[in-house]
């Protein structure tokens, strides 16, 4: 064959790496497909929703170097908009509800992003936190959110008007598909030229500017993408649990997603997924143990330990070890 004859060793290596990566992805997808037969699907869906949320957050922190302390606002916006629409208009199908919820988060992300990228570093974090708190107060007072009680009894409905999502298994595969879509989008974005420019901005913004990149535009697009995906996670979560509440809008939630990302590994593709899985499992376990009231302080301790001595996170450390020992 002509193609094999012209292949250089480096091309071969690359092809092998690609094969390995594809096999790895396929194996993970297979695990995801059979998982609901081994674990409680509702728990898995919760993990997937938070994993998508954390991946969206990581796109901003891990690749553009922007620490948003207000991502709860987007999660909550997606959740509230989807919840309100599905509860008020029974004719609306869940995928449309989720789509509109995501669009709402996208619009909010455009507004907040345009404001917050006007300041850098520490100030960026404080601005996003303050803007999210503004949304928190808005959602307490707004008539459509149910205030302190939240929205309950949001119907899951029929996917495309056909497939009933009442069964947890059907719901699970829908959530899994959404997660895969979000993850693939992030994976694509990170490895595209756009993602390379984001990394350049993270490493040295003035230099990226001097190379002629309009860094503000790149940061804004990353912010909007991240906000939209966080909204997608919130919308999906609302359909799964059939409720939307103020918990999602609280700054604790913005902190939790930071912890998930930090624990799993900032700036790695799988880190946020692993971190979300761990934090959700931990909360689940603690809630049933006598330590149930100590979730907050325990998360705080994990935060401190991560920052002091585990900054690459689990996936980051694992990759370091892999590189050291196998390459």
């Amino acid at each position, binding site marked *: 064959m002509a193609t094999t004859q012209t292949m250089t060793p480096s091309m071969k290596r690359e092809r092998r790496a690609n094969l390995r990566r594809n096999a790895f992805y396929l194996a993970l997808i297979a695990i995801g497909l059979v998982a609901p037969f081994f674990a409680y699907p509702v728990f898995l869906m919760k993990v997937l929703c938070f994993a998508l949320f954390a991946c969206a957050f990581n796109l901003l922190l891990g690749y553009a170097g922007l*620490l948003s*302390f207000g991502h709860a606002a987007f999660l909550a916006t997606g959740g509230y908009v989807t919840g309100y629409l599905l509860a008020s208009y029974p004719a609306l199908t869940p995928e449309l509800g989720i789509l509109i919820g995501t669009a709402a988060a996208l619009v909010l992300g455009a507004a907040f992003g345009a*404001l*917050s990228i*006007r*300041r*850098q*570093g*520490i*100030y960026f*974090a*404080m*601005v996003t*936190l*303050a*803007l999210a*708190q*503004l949304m928190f*107060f*808005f959602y307490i*007072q707004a008539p459509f959110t149910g205030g302190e009680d939240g929205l309950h009894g949001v119907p899951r409905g029929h996917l495309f008007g056909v497939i009933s999502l009442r069964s947890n298994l059907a719901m699970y595969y829908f959530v899994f598909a959404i997660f895969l879509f979000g993850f693939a989008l992030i994976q694509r974005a990170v490895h595209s030229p756009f993602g390379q420019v984001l990394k350049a901005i993270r490493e040295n913004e003035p230099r990226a500017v001097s190379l002629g990149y309009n860094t503000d535009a790149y940061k804004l697009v990353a912010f909007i993408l991240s906000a939209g995906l966080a909204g997608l996670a919130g919308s999906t979560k609302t359909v799964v649990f059939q409720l939307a509440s103020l918990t999602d809008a609280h*700054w604790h939630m913005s*902190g939790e997603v*930071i912890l998930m990302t*930090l624990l799993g590994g900032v700036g790695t593709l799988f880190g946020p997924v692993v971190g979300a899985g761990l934090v959700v499992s931990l909360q689940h376990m603690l809630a049933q143990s006598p330590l149930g*009231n*100590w*979730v*907050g*302080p325990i*998360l*705080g*301790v*994990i*935060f*401190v330990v*991560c*920052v*002091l001595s585990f*900054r690459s996170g689990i996936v980051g450390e694992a990759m370091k070890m892999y590189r050291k020992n196998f390459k």
Partner: protein
Amino acid sequence: MTMIFGVPLAVFMGQLLLGLINGAFYALLSLGLAVIFGLLKIVNFAHGAMYMLGAFATLLGMRYLGINYWAALLLAPLFVGLLGMLIERVLLRRIGHLDHLYGLLLTFGLALIFEGTLVNFFGVSGARYPTPEALQGGYQTGFMFLPKYRAWVLLAALVVCFATWYIIERTRLGAYLRAGTENPALMQAFGVNVPLLVTLTYGFGVALAAFAGVLAAPLYPVSPTMGSNLLIVVFAVVVIGGMGSILGAIVTGLAMGLIEGLTKVYYPEAANTVIFLVMILVLLLRPAGLFGKEA
């Protein structure tokens, strides 16, 4: 009765006073944040927790140790300041060389620990401690009733704010501090013990927060979450004012308190959010903040 834009003068002045008192708290807290940020370059997310600990130290000291208010005014900030110095020595120092975002994350973790632990022991509902006897009652001025305690809080907060300004801008120690903010390595080369200066600065900053906590306690219920909600507003105040100037922090804090008070009079629904809206406006018109320098 005299009316101001359809609101009775007494109500108007009362809300203005409340706003001014809130503003004094914003000023004290953002002052501490600015002092810490200047030298350590970290935003102290545990600042709200330190404010809360100041109030709790007073409450518990009064309840179990029989400490009176005036002693607590001194002892609570001292206690919290020492705790802060310990935190700086044991934790913050180890991440000093890293990206400053890690400082924010570490202190966020600390805030979760303090807040969550106290919630487990005292719940979230909160307790009050009595106004000291000497400060009960009030003055009947021509246009409003001025409670003594509120007058005292305002006076004490302003005195501490301006004393801090004086120390930093007019004394030798303050000169070291300002020099350390500019170039710590050079300071070290001149033989100034910079690590000690950093520890003292952090302790002083959080002691200011604790002092505000002691002042606040007879006015607001003492609860473990009292600090975090306030802190987010203070962050907005800091974004509005910029952390570059001490006097700027004081002025912005007071002004935002007043604006909040005025909003409470004319449009109470927005009282919680008006400072965030001002922040948005400032970001649009003057991104570096009112007193900030473009980074």
